[in-house]
């Protein structure tokens, strides 16, 4: 059976990082504050209040349009999208309908088949966020909703793609690239909770299209798509039809669920917002100077820092990470780059993800010091990881971090270097040599097995040796010395 072609399009809503809201002066920094404390007559939709457009939100949206190679329309305007919902206090959302800010662009991603793939952008427009609902109560005692209008009026940019993606993986890549681009443009902060929401359109070629709404995490997008594709494919396999409908993604259960039919009867009755005036901003495009974007930075990392393509992709895939990398290597570019490359792209990212921490929590100078200690072979990689973990745990708990030197002292992390050519005085005090002798004496059976050529005997002995030296010795050295000692005995 021919592989059914999957067709995916995304509608991405991102909160623009302006200081004040889209149509009023309320501060956008609402996340840690009590409900309904970032509200004024305008964003509360009080009768008589009127919107006034935030210029910076248009500037930001135009940066995005330029970065995504879109054409800004000569005239664009705002329209009212009319519907009833408790979180929509005017019972209409001010958005852009038939005259959006920009149309027709593209974003390049790494295609599933390798190589660059262009995902086309249909349109970009600006609109306001509604408030936030919290569902309360129980079926027995009565359900009700609580509304917080702090979020009402936050500026959103909506980026709509053509259905050019062919897999959940491509969708995830598109989203990651888009997110990174918006951060590089300084118009968006992905670490703010709820700052990005996605609606996905999925179909199997030849069948109806299903819309999955309100996916609010990056991981959620791939999961939702995987579930939905599986659902659709299994329907088709059983000879059933896929209904054209709107579904909601339920994050907790990882499934999509059909929305009530009421949703589908929405007639939004769009008309131009009479309290606002149209925009003639096409001429602003020339004046926009784009910063270095992810692709360009990736190329520069490869050229300037000799990063591998994969590492460069990872490092430049997030603005904070790329900035962190460059700060870390700035102190000693030649010496630290090779280490920084792996230690940030592989090790640090892993440890941060595990702890759900942002790279912002890590001090670049402190990290440079750690890398310097590694470079100078004062500690081993294993010790380095342990020391990093100790301090990350401190940061996570809000405790003060410990100095690297103190940690080395405290836990005896100093790497022990052994050379046979040292003076006898040193040779006597050599703990590595002692450790080797101890291990050989403690495990005669294993030594016997080694002599007999049994596989695994050597690894067992090395393991015991690593335990004894608590990772303070260089593994390569231990290997060499143990081998020497064992073969010496033989002779």
């Amino acid at each position, binding site marked *: 059976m021919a592989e059914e072609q999957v067709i995916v399009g995304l509608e991405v809503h991102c909160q623009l990082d*302006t*200081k*004040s809201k889209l149509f*009023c*002066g*309320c*501060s956008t920094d609402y996340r840690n504050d*009590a*409900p*309904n*404390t*970032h*509200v*004024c*007559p305008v964003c*509360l939709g009080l009768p008589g209040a009127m919107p*006034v*457009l*935030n*210029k*910076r*939100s*248009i500037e930001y949206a135009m940066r995005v349009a330029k970065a995504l190679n879109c054409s800004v329309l000569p*005239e664009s305007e705002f329209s009212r999208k009319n519907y*009833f*919902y*408790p979180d929509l206090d005017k019972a209409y959302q001010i958005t852009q309908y038939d005259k959006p800010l920009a149309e027709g662009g593209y974003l390049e991603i790494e295609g599933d088949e390798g190589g660059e793939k262009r995902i086309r952008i249909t349109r970009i427009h600006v609109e306001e966020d509604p408030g936030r*609902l*919290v*569902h*309360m*109560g129980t079926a027995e005692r*009565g*359900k*009700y*909703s*609580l*509304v*917080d*209008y702090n979020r009402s009026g936050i500026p959103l940019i909506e980026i709509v793609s053509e259905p050019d993606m062919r897999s959940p993986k491509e969708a995830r890549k598109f989203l990651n690239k888009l997110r990174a681009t918006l951060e590089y443009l300084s118009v968006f902060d992905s670490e703010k909770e709820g700052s990005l929401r996605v609606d996905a359109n999925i179909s199997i070629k030849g069948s109806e299209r299903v819309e999955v709404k309100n996916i609010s995490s990056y991981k959620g997008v791939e999961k939702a798509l995987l579930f939905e594709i599986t659902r659709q494919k299994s329907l088709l396999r059983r000879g059933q039809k896929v209904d054209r409908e709107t579904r909601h993604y339920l994050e907790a259960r990882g499934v999509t669920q059909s929305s*009530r039919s*009421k949703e589908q009867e929405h*007639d939004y009755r769009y008309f131009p917002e009479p309290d*606002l*005036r*149209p*925009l*003639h*901003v096409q001429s602003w495009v020339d004046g926009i100077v784009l910063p270095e974007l992810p692709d360009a930075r990736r190329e520069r990392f490869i050229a300037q820092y000799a990063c591998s393509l994969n590492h460069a992709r990872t490092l430049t895939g997030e603005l904070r990470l790329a900035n962190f990398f460059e700060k870390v290597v700035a102190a000693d570019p030649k010496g630290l780059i090779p280490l920084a490359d792996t230690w940030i792209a592989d090790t640090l990212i892993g440890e941060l993800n595990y702890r759900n921490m942002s790279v912002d929590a890590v001090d670049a100078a402190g990290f440079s010091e750690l890398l310097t200690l590694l470079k100078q072979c004062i500690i081993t990689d294993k010790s380095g990881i342990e020391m990093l973990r100790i301090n990350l745990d401190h940061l996570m708990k809000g405790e003060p971090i410990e100095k690297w030197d103190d940690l080395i002292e405290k836990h005896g992390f100093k790497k022990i270097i052994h050379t046979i050519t040292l003076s006898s005085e040193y040779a006597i005090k050599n703990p590595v040599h002692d450790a080797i002798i101890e291990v050989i004496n403690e495990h005669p059976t294993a030594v016997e097995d080694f002599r007999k050529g049994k596989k695994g005997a050597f690894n067992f002995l090395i393991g015991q040796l690593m335990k004894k030296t608590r990772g303070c010795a260089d593994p390569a050295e231990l290997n060499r010395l143990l081998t020497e000692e064992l073969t010496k005995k033989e002779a």
Partner: protein
Amino acid sequence: MATEQEVRHIAELADVGINTEELATFTHQFNAILDYFDILDRVSGDTAVTRDRYNVMREDEIEPSLPQEEVLRNAAAQEDGFIKAPRVM
């Protein structure tokens, strides 16, 4: 012209409600007005509407918000600073 069924549907869409007693009279008056609106079919002209101004915008500056008590003052029901609303399905 709009049937009583359609008028009921419009009342639903607008969430204004319509009583069965008023439906017949309402529909009759509604249609008389819609009939009158048909005169617009004869209007011809350029669809482009002239606007007096463009690019009316404000700087991205923070201004004081209302105190929470003011936001909640006119709300019939509130809980812990939130405004209480009927449940959504």
